[in-house]
């Protein structure tokens, strides 16, 4: 671990946690933490004329686990022309080979995030049964700190408890599952719909009954939200709503968001929201079919701006060839029917499912172009950037390596118009979206809120990540941009954020001039809930394993210590 002292000198500091916007100053680092000052022998890194931000925090990205790996296995062609396959430099310097574009290898994932100055990434959907594998992949991803959200919303235990209205038992089950899977929080993916998929069905609205379980998606979301607040977890429930990706789905989206109305948060981590709505772009569509498909970003954001106890991330379409993968099994089958490309489906007993289909977002295909505009509009209509986060739902709407391009589009109207002008159906895209009429250009401060302070707060991690206050983890990115001249040349924004001039992670320089110079010291973050024993849940879980409902023995279910060797544990105490 880094023990040396470092001082980053003379950069334009952008730190929304302390409301610092472009002041020229220094950042001092000692023992992997930010400190007030360091001795004169500290290593000096010159940041003059460049901007200095905290390490990035990604609230939602699919970077480890069985479905990511299914995607890698299914798409050898994704690696073919992916660049640094056998980079001589990497070999010489002792780094690992990198491959893949939309589903990069674990090494490329860690290196690319570091090159972009990201310090923390949340794996957005971990099937509990396959948590050991997920943790092995997380451990093999260098540099970045990671955590994973186990999926709960199609879990048989959860649906049975909530069907009987047993929030406390649900909470006890969540606490147990977070402990055995070393998970971080409660992910909700197509609540009820993925369970229905086992019967070849789906749940498209909040009131569609889940077969066998006699519960509705709305009841699952409400129940999990109550259980999450009962426990006081650092993160809120993290929701992928029903009816993803379909024209005219925005009323269902708003109906799901409304479930948070009147719910109060209860936690000790500084989190203010009770529901995080993820990849909102996929849920903000109007029209009755693909012919009159249109953006409803304004309608959705009008609601989000009013409702203060929810946060969102964008899920921006980046107009690339990518690989979609989600625990929303029925959606992937539906997508395969639309594009006829190869499809993988996985069922995870008692818990969840997953599907994988390659997809090409083509700027000349009208619905894709409208999706592109919708994602950006959500950010441009947002009033509180501390509740609005940049994601591409990697790799679903595009690879995470396109965040710098998304930032470029958000910061420069000229860049948006330039992309719009190259489309085949420019006029039709303009007619079906709002983007052409929006002049707003986000500032670097707002970008820092959306990629640093905001997501850290939403995850309950604001004491560690997302800011440059003394005591926080020394994750510091230096980007070659002139604060005084923004947006300036939009292309420069993309280049600067793609390859940090320097990135310090946990007090150690890991990237210099856009190249990785160290494999860093990554950590796996998870949440350990201490609460009184719940005999009912203990018995139910033990029965499920002993009666053979699960195909594995309970002794083989938990993530063993050696699979997550560098843990950072967040304790949560629940009193009886």
């Amino acid at each position, binding site marked *: 671990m880094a023990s040396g002292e470092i001082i980053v000198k003379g950069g334009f500091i952008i730190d929304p946690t302390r409301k610092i916007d472009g002041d020229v100053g220094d950042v001092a680092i000692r023992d992997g933490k930010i400190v007030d000052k360091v001795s004169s022998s500290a290593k000096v890194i010159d940041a003059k004329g460049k901007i200095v931000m905290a390490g990035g925090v990604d609230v939602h990205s699919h970077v480890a686990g069985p479905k990511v790996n299914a995607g890698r296995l299914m*798409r*050898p*062609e994704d690696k073919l022309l992916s660049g640094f396959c056998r980079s001589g430099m990497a*070999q010489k310097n002792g780094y690992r080979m990198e491959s893949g574009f939309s589903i990069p290898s674990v090494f490329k994932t860690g290196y690319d995030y570091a090159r972009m100055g990201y310090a923390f990434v949340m794996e957005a959907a971990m099937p509990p049964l396959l948590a050991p594998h997920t943790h092995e992949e997380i451990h093999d991803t260098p540099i970045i700190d990671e955590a994973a959200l186990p999926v709960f919303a199609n879990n048989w235990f959860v649906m049975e408890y909530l069907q009987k209205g047993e929030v406390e038992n649900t909470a006890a089950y969540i606490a147990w599952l977070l402990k055995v899977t070393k998970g971080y929080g409660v992910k909700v993916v197509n609540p009820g719909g993925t369970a229905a998929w086992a019967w070849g069905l789906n749940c498209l609205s909040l009131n569609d009954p889940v077969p066998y379980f006699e519960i509705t998606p709305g009841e699952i979301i409400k129940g999990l939200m109550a259980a999450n607040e009962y426990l006081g977890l650092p993160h809120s429930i993290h929701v992928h709503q029903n009816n993803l990706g379909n024209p005219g789905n925005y009323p269902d989206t708003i109906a799901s968001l409304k479930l948070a109305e009147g719910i109060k948060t209860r936690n000790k981590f500084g989190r203010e929201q009770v529901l995080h709505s993820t990849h909102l772009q996929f849920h903000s569509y109007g029209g009755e079919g693909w012919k009159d498909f249109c953006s409803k970003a304004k309608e959705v954001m009008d609601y989000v701006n009013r409702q203060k106890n929810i946060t969102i991330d964008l899920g921006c379409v980046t107009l690339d060839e990518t690989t979609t993968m989600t625990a929303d099994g029925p959606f992937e089958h539906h997508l395969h029917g639309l594009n006829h490309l190869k499809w993988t489906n996985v069922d995870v007993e008692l818990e969840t499912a997953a599907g994988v289909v390659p997809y090409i977002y083509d700027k000349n295909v009208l619905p894709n172009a409208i999706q592109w505009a919708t994602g950006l509009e959500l950010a441009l209509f947002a009033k509180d950037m501390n509740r609005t986060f940049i994601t591409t739902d990697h790799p679903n709407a595009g690879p995470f390596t396109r965040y710098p391009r998304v930032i470029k589009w958000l910061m420069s109207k000229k860049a948006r118009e330039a992309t719009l002008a190259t489309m085949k159906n420019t006029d039709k895209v303009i007619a079906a979206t709002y983007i052409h009429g929006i002049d707003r250009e986000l500032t670097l401060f707002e970008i820092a809120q959306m990629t640093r302070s905001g997501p850290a707060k939403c995850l309950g991690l604001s004491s560690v990540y997302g800011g440059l206050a003394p005591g926080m983890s020394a994750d510091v990115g230096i980007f070659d941009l002139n604060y005084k001249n923004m947006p300036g040349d939009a292309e420069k924004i993309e280049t600067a954020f793609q390859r940090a001039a320097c990135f310090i992670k946990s007090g150690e320089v890991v990237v210099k001039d856009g190249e990785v110079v160290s494999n860093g010291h990554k950590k796996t973050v998870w949440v350990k809930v201490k609460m009184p024993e719940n005999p009912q849940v203990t018995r139910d879980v033990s029965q499920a394993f002993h009666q053979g409902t699960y195909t594995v023995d309970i002794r083989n279910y938990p993530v063993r210590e050696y699979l997550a060797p560098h843990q950072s544990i967040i304790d949560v105490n629940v009193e009886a």
Partner: protein
Amino acid sequence: MATVTLNPTKVPELIFEGYSINPDAFAGKTAAQIAALPGHEGKIHVTIGDFFSVSGDAGATAAETDIVIAGDCSRVKYIGSKMTAGTVIVNGNADMYVGGWMKGGKIHIKGNMDSFCGIQMEGGELLCDGNAGNHVGCAYRGDWRGMKGGTIRVKGNAGNDIGTFMLGGTIIIEKNAFIHVSTHAEGGTVIIKGDVEGRVGGQMVKGEMYVLGKIKFMMPGYKKVDTVEKEVDGVRATFDHYIGDLGERHPKSKGQVVYANLYLKAAA
């Protein structure tokens, strides 16, 4: 026109990945510069000069550059891959990926060539006097976008997986082929002048296939619709016309369902 001659001097211990052996990489370079062009042997960086002596400078552009390899390249991969113009002649055998992803120009292999020749080819001509291995003009592993254009002519036999996921262009096998012809194809033409073991046109959506010999095992998804007389690559004959693969999805054009067509030479 300028001719660059490569004389093999050493047989690679592993396989030499000669991805720089194409007129586009050579264009505008002297013999010495060409010898310094990169390649891989396993994970080790090597140069063309490690395995060949180079004589003659290249032309200013790819179109003005002819490459002659005066000997065997059984352990050299990627000859002429991604080329856009000019010519490559190999006086012997070639290893895998000859003319892969090529867009133009002409390649002539005077011996045999190994698998994956002409994969995802978009244009140009690939001629082989001997036999070809497997995956002639098919898609890269996992990819659903196969050969789009150009011509591949193999004067001998070919192995399996010919024109998989083919979208356009022409493949001619003058002798026999093994299994899997035009699997998943959505366009293009494959002509087999000899016999085929089987699995011709499985899951094929669109495109043409001609077999002038026999098909030992016919796919069950093909239905004979009529008998036609046609001229194919200089041969005039009567063909039984089949459509298929009936088990696969098919697009509609002007209200008519479009099938793949298989023309099998009628028994005399």
